[in-house]
């Protein structure tokens, strides 16, 4: 059955974005004139590294941020002139947890229903329906602070759907969750999309998530759309195979690289580092936690009303400097952990070229540790269109701390459920 739409029979896309731009502090073009459309019932993924402009775009579409220029229409309503109508049409599951941990799951849902003006019996019925949908019915009356990361995420998704939005925004829906929970969240998202034909925009920097879930993928980098297509077509753009070479001594990359570049069957060469900045971040956070004892707010705070004043309140200069050097640097492809660099080659007919590559390495005295051959994945697509590996952490210091916080919270109580 087809439902009638605002536009009747004419083809109006449910989301139309036109030259949307956001400039922060008059200089940082976080989102730079992007335009695209989304059809009803589609799952569109924003794929990009941290700080690429994904969340900023989402916040503008959700009327939380006013665009510097350009506009967008959601379900026929303009985000600038009709923000209220837009807000009614959307549900938003934020990247950072926005549940009230001191309330129960049911109370969180009930508050949401009230804010959206749902009547009492409608609220009651939908809370039951939604908590069953995300399999939380038996835990609905427990305080959210006792939930596991996956349960919190499911509750947030249930909440985002309570008012029956036409469009659902999911900002990094599985950030920090373990693979099993991630799978189950994916299942929920797919079911929602199919059963309720909700249009979904999700942001992610997990390529496999984008590949698995999305009808189309919009790769965004430095605020611009780099490409927009179906996962299959994106991958098909990279004709050939990927051959990954791990060198025993990574410094020898400079020696073998020019030799490979001479060959006409090598289409592209990228140096890939498996970056490990999350571990670095964990160490930093531990250091900071040790120091935060002295960062009090003065004893005089009767009635302080928020529990969120955590250990990240103050930061010794020493740590800030280390963080600035260690994580913010543009060059982190090479500095993070030198031992695991490898060369990725895009090669015509890779299987037949491997012997030749090995021979080449032997002749130039480079010892290969391993050679891998695989079909191009979205990771490779990303690398080829942006020139960078998607897993390289980038972005401001605050952003890094914030992500760490989210990951910590998501992992926090896995033992409970």
């Amino acid at each position, binding site marked *: 059955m087809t439902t009638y739409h605002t536009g009747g029979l004419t083809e109006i896309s449910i989301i139309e974005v036109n030259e949307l731009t956001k400039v922060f502090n008059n200089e940082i073009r976080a989102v730079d004139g992007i335009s695209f459309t989304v059809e009803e019932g589609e799952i569109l993924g924003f794929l990009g590294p941290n700080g690429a402009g994904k969340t900023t775009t989402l916040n503008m579409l959700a009327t939380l941020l006013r665009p510097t220029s350009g506009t967008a229409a959601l379900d026929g309503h303009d985000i600038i002139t009709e923000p209220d109508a837009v807000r009614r049409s959307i549900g938003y599951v934020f990247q950072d947890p*926005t549940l009230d941990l001191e309330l129960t799951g049911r109370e969180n849902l009930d508050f949401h229903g009230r804010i959206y003006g749902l009547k009492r019996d409608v609220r009651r019925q939908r809370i039951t329906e939604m908590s069953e949908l995300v399999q939380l019915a038996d835990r609905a009356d427990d305080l959210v602070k006792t939930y596991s990361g996956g349960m919190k995420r499911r509750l947030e998704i249930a909440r985002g759907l309570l008012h029956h939005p036409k469009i659902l925004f999911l900002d990094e829906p599985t950030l920090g969750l373990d693979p099993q929970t991630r799978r189950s969240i994916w299942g929920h998202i797919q079911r929602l999309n199919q059963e309720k034909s909700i249009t979904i925009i999700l942001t992610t920097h997990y390529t496999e998530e984008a590949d698995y879930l999305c009808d189309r993928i919009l790769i965004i980098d430095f605020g611009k759309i780099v490409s927009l297509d179906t996962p299959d077509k994106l991958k098909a753009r990279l004709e050939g195979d990927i051959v990954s070479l791990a060198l025993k001594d990574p410094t020898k990359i400079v020696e073998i690289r020019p030799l490979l570049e001479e060959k006409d069957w090598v289409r592209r060469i990228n140096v890939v580092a498996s970056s490990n900045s999350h571990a670095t971040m964990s160490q930093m956070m531990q250091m900071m936690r040790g120091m935060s004892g002295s960062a009090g707010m003065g004893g005089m705070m009767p009635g302080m009303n928020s529990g969120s004043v955590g250990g990240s309140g103050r930061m010794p200069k020493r740590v800030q400097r280390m963080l600035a050097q260690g994580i913010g640097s543009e060059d982190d492809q090479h500095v993070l952990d030198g031992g695991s660099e490898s060369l990725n080659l895009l090669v015509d007919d890779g299987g037949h070229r491997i012997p030749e590559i090995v021979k080449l390495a032997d002749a130039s005295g480079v010892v290969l540790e391993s050679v891998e051959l695989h079909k191009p994945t979205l990771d490779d697509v990303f690398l080829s269109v942006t020139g960078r590996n998607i897993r390289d952490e980038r972005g401001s210091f605050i952003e890094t701390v914030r992500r760490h916080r989210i990951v910590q919270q998501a992992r926090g109580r896995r033992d409970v459920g």
Partner: protein
Amino acid sequence: MVQPLSGQAIYVVLLRELKRYWRAKARIISSMAQSFFFLAIFGLGIGGFVGGFGGISYLSYLAPGIIGMGLLFGSVFSGVSVIFDRQFGFMKEMLVAPVSRTSIVLGKVFGGAMTASIQGIILMTVAGLMGAFSPTLTLIVGAIAAIGVMILITAGFVGLGVAIGSVLTDFHAFQLLVTFVMWPLFMLSGVFFPIEVAPVPLQVAMLGDPLFYGVELLRWCLLGAGTSLLGPFGWLIALGVLVGFTAAMVVIGTYLFSRAQV
């Protein structure tokens, strides 16, 4: 664009404040204990040293000020907590909902005013049990009036807190807020000494502190006596100033909050 006020949204924010307040038992107990220490140690200690003023004991003189302190800190922090809510929490959820920012602020003001006033009532009871107020029939009327005054005071200071919270964007400024706003407001409010004994520049500063009028009003309600500096209709002047302050703070808080972005 003007959005209508939403009763449900106001109610949700208010209810949330109340539930959170009630579930944080440690906070209730610690703030009660803190005020008790002030009353017991300062009231009895300094009281033994200076005696009393104008026919009332120092403990009695101190009690309304200590209540005022509880109201001040409780309500400003409740207001300022919009920073944390906005950056990390629940408030973001409300900001994408089709409700006006004004409804959110009003809910915050009512909720904060209610929780801080509940705290004030507890303090009033503690002070009463310590013998700060003479138990007469007029005290009952006075206590009821005092509750009204508490709501007025706290509503104003939650408004101030929301205004500050909308402008501040990081935690570092929090210490500055406590040192440069909260402490002066508290110490200039005539908690420890009557305005008459202060030198003129200090008197001027005290007259500029909205909490001073709040504490004076509480003193009028609970002790039947206030400073002679404001004249025989001192309570009316104090009430007028307080109403003006509260109205201004709620308006300013609402304005700044609606301008703030995530």
